[in-house]
């Protein structure tokens, strides 16, 4: 079972990134819980969601120690880095997180997600770039299969956009190079 937190500014698509992760995992037969940040946790304009993904029924949807953190901005890194389990994975959006101090007992993958999405003319796709890096780094689901899942998800909503796949694959690539 993997415990993942996805955090950033409201508007950076962190809840959607988490939903995509949950949705595609479900389609591939996994059990999932997805819990949005809520109430007082939401103050200050940051949003987050936490997921647990596994092969067995998920008992506790809450956790204080996570395997993976997707940090879209500095505040998220400051809030959650300490909660990453030793040996865990941090995907850090280096477009927004500058000169950060990273722990040395975790695997840090820096991805310039905002810039990559901008270069691809899909500025709202930064969350999907980050997702690509997370999926590749955790080996949760095969990357191509996940990319297909993203396409299917948006197609069903009538919002097909081939650039989402490109964003995702750039994230996968970034993780491979890290």
């Amino acid at each position, binding site marked *: 079972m993997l415990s993942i937190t996805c955090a950033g500014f409201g508007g950076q698509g962190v809840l959607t990134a988490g939903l995509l992760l949950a949705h595609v995992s479900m389609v591939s037969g996994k059990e*999932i*819980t997805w819990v949005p940040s809520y109430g007082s946790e939401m103050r200050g304009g940051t949003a987050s969601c936490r997921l647990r993904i596994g092969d067995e029924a998920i008992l506790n949807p809450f956790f204080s120690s996570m395997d993976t953190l997707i940090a879209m901005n500095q505040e998220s890194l400051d809030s959650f880095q300490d909660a990453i389990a030793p040996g865990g994975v941090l995907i850090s959006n280096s477009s927004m997180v500058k000169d950060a101090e990273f722990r040395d007992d975790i695997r840090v993958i820096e991805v310039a997600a905002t810039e990559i999405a901008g270069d691809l003319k899909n500025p709202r796709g930064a969350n999907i770039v980050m997702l690509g890096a997370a999926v590749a780094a955790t080996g949760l689901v095969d990357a191509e299969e996940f990319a297909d899942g993203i396409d299917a998800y948006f197609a069903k909503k009538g919002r097909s956009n081939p650039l989402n796949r490109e964003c995702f694959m750039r994230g996968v690539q970034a993780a491979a190079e890290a």
Partner: protein
Amino acid sequence: MPRRLMKGNDALSEAAVRAGCRFFGGYPITPQSEILEYLSWRLPEAGGTFIQAESELSGINMVYGAAAAGFRAMTSSSGPGYSLLQEGISYIASAELPAVFIDVQRYGSGLGDIFQAQSDYWQATRGGGHGDYRTLVYAPASVQEGVDLIQVAFDKADQYRNPCQILSDASIAQMMEPVTLPEMHEHDPNADWAVRGKRGGDFKRVTSTMYYIEDFDAYIKNKYDVMAEQEQRWESVLVEDADLVLVAYGISSRICKEAVEIARAQGIRLGLLRPITLWPFPVKGFAEVNPDVKAYLSVELTSLPKMEDDVKLACEMKAPVEKFLGGANIPESTAIVERAVSILKEQR
């Protein structure tokens, strides 16, 4: 049926429609507002009626009218809004009508706050309104279980002609999990007691049934005795050899289940008894517990103990009953294990 990823509130709403619910009157309040938002489009699509009422008072009385007319009807609320429903729940129970109410529990008395809690246990299980009545109270621990239990709630409401409640909470309401939804069910509204004009027969009066039933005290006591005897539901996890049994419902029970798993891996014999019905409290489940159990630990997301009383009654105090109160904070499963271990040390 393929699985769908759904938010607790949305899944509960969809399942209600599929259970044949065709009327909802209610008022927005966090964390239950998604139920209104969902049903505002879904009920008309299914040929039903959605009304955003001017208050919870009005909403529940619209439900009273629709239920009296024979239709499957429901409302939902939270916190202060749930208090406002209580007068109506008493009337609907007194008139012996079927209806379903959802309380998405939030934290605190007064305005309180919107985060998850389990503070309304007494209000739900003791009859939060005036007089002599009970409601069947179902406590889902997952999005799927909410889907399953709301079907049961509508069926049992019909069977006993008595309101049933779903006691949810902010965390289950707001989280998403994969669910399998049941098929659509159409409900026949033309029960012989349903008001729709006398249509050639005798005129019907929907009011407290005590006015028309002989030996009413015995009648109503028997009605609730039968429900208490026949409608207990629970899940037990490794209670037969447990040294300490956790008792928890809803979201708390999931943390406790994890605690049982952690403890067992360390050789600590923890078990869990999870009430699925809160009224009737599953007293029968306690018969499955190790007769030499050393203690019970009642785990609730409350500031003041509530379910603990029922645990004491159910186990007849044959073992000490301790409490773990989370308040508004979801406890760590390891903290529950630690507490259990320290209780077991004291009992030695």
